[in-house]
């Protein structure tokens, strides 16, 4: 091997000189230097390690709370009151954007940096419970005077219960209902919104007849899985079978509901391409769309866009049912829950904070801050909620909401598979039969791990 000095020898003289000087210098200090150097490196590494652990080792009376989106932004305003009631306790609120929330929470758990209390979309509770990241709250609830099961909507509470154990406390709730243009429906002869599937279809037909071709009675986007699942549930479809370990989307019931919705798109009663609709509220204002099944987050936007003449032209209604037997038909139990990290060292304080956020007063205040619908039923007695004409439909709907299958794989099943096959059928690439057969195959593949876990546990 040619060594460094002989290579240097081939360089021009001044370079050689500099290099030689450097090598001499290097020789004289090398032993000291290498020691210093490793010391430096080591201290740097340990410093960075200690910095990254710093978050956890904050004072014993500070609890960390992660909340998403608007909640993360505005919940800060609720904290001073809590700190006043509980002198010495501090709450550090961290806002996490919704789009990155799941990633961040899972990585926080993996690196043992989970916040003491955090907000979870209630469909995420099964995932975090499977991770073993969140505390079983049964014993805490037993001791509590604030948090009692009967204070909550039944369907919503149930989303947090896994194998009979409670893992989260509902914080705010949402569900899907029908938003509609009052005047357009009235023109089509529907002074009251449709209460059955037949009426919904008939109403859409009649509206379409009165509209120019580029306008649509209803919006059923294929990149929103919720309506497909809701209508499936209304048709009594059992979405998964054998202890949620196999797909059951080929069932007669689900296929019936699925085709019913796809037909709206096929018969041009709903737009096919999702990219045509960039602003749903603007589309409503222009009568481009006249019915839409969606959640409470739309209320404020509708109020913002539907002004002047249009202000009283829109309304909300509970969902129609498959048959007229029971109204409203079932909808989804959505919303967010508060959960406690199983690794928290300050569980007492964390629970105190959860209780504080669950008091009727604070629930109403959260509504005032960001219009999150209260999970605690008492809060709905407040005049600000009671007098809002758009909320009545929600309150009625909450009496009949159910949880989606509570397994960690559910989100993948609906977001990546159901939406995909809805699009395939709507665009005519597949028939409903073919799509649901493929759907079940995909779902069964996704659930393979779950079946293995079940068989191992038995």
């Amino acid at each position: 091997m040619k060594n460094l000095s002989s290579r240097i020898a081939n360089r021009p003289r001044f370079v050689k000189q500099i290099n030689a000087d450097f090598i001499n210098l290097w020789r004289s200090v090398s032993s000291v230097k290498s020691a210093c150097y490793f010391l430096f490196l080591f201290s740097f590494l340990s410093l960075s390690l200690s910095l990254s652990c710093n978050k956890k080792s904050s004072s014993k009376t500070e609890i960390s709370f992660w909340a998403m989106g608007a909640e993360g932004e505005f919940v800060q305003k609720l904290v001073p009151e809590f700190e006043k009631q509980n002198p010495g306790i501090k709450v550090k609120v961290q806002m996490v954007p919704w789009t990155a929330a799941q990633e961040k929470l899972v990585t926080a758990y993996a690196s043992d940096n989970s916040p003491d209390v955090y907000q979870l979309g209630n469909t995420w509770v099964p995932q975090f419970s499977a991770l073993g990241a969140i505390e079983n709250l049964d014993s805490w609830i037993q001791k509590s005077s604030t948090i009692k099961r009967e204070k909550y909507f039944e369907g919503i509470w149930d989303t947090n219960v896994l194998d009979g154990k409670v893992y989260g406390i509902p914080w705010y709730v949402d569900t899907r209902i029908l938003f509609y243009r009052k005047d357009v429906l009235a023109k089509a002869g529907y002074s009251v919104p449709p209460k059955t599937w037949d009426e919904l279809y008939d109403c859409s037909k009649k509206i379409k007849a009165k509209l120019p071709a580029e306008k649509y009675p209803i919006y059923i986007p294929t990149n929103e899985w919720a309506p497909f699942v809701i209508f499936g549930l209304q048709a009594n479809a059992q979405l998964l079978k054998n202890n949620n370990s196999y797909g059951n989307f080929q069932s007669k019931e689900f296929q019936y509901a699925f085709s019913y919705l796809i037909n709206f798109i096929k018969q041009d009663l709903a737009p096919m391409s999702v990219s045509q609709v960039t602003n749903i509220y603007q589309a409503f204002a222009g009568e481009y769309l006249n019915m839409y099944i969606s959640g409470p987050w739309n209320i404020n936007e509708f109020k913002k866009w539907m002004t002047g003449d249009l202000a009283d032209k829109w309304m909300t209604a509970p969902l129609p049912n498959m048959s007229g037997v029971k109204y409203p038909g079932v909808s989804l139990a959505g919303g967010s829950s508060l959960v406690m990290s199983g690794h928290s060292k300050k569980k007492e304080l964390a629970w105190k904070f959860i209780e504080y956020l669950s008091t009727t007063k604070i629930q109403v205040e959260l509504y005032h801050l960001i219009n999150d619908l209260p999970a605690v039923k008492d809060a709905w007695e407040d005049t600000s909620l009671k007098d809002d004409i758009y909320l009545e439909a929600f309150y009625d709907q909450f009496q009949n909401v159910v949880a989606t299958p509570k397994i960690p794989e559910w989100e993948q099943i609906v977001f990546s598979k159901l939406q995909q096959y809805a699009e395939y059928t709507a665009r005519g690439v597949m028939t409903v039969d073919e799509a649901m057969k493929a759907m079940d195959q995909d779902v069964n593949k996704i659930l393979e791990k779950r079946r293995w876990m079940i068989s191992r546990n038995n």
Partner: protein
Amino acid sequence: MNSRNNNVKALVFFLGPAMLAIFVFFCIPVLSAFVISFTDFDIYSLGNFSNARFIGLRNYTQLFEDPLFWIALRNTFFFVILAGPLSVAVSLFSALLLNAKLVKFKGIFRLTYFMPVVTTLIAVAIVWRFIYHPRFGLLNYLLSFIHINPVDWLGNPFWAMPAIVLMSVWKNFGYNMIIFIAGLNNIPSDLYEAATIEGASWWQQFRSITLPMLAPTTLFISLITMIGYFQLFAEPYIMTQGGPLNKTLSIVQYLYQEGFRWWNMGYSAAIAFVLFFIIFLGSVIQTLVQKKLKHA
């Protein structure tokens, strides 16, 4: 002996930190990803390692039976094959234009063409989504002057990928252009003088002098472009989320979805290694072809 010892010390001193960083932040993750690709590591395993199983090659065999993987692969190849040569051609063309003696304010042109490269991709993608909007978009507005009916660029299964290709080429050609300009400036001018004296036309000069002299540059650019384009992600992620009908779903996007949305880490790692293998193969083939062209 002593000097050799010193060499080792010097090596450790100069290369040590970088090697350590590469080892910790590159080698270890890559190795563990390789191991993970033979397991079914997922959300259950993240909580409890005993829930992970060694499943040998099953991730890989499953991958080859997965229709979505093939769709993603086809889309990615479609993108690379369409956008790669197009990007190289456009950047060569613009480099030639900017290198022409007639052009004034070369600096300003270079800057403008280079701007998209340094602009945040996310911002660019959002602006282009507006440009492609079926009802309010600039592109459809311009096309209306030549009486072309509005196209739902990103919502139409046929046009979505070409729309993304167009945007990516626009975004990237500036970088290659700068390298081409450097390459052009390295061609000795006496070659052109000699050719002119011999009466060679512009086209003959281009074919017999410019192109051969640019061969190493072209190899470099096409390699870099290909490697970059195989990792197509942010453009469809922002603009189409892989739709319509999965026509813009790319391999990396599929990998991301499987790994970081659904937490199927094992499967996602397997996708990563297949992608690595494809890029590796592509690079080898490209180098061989270029070598052959050079000697031919």
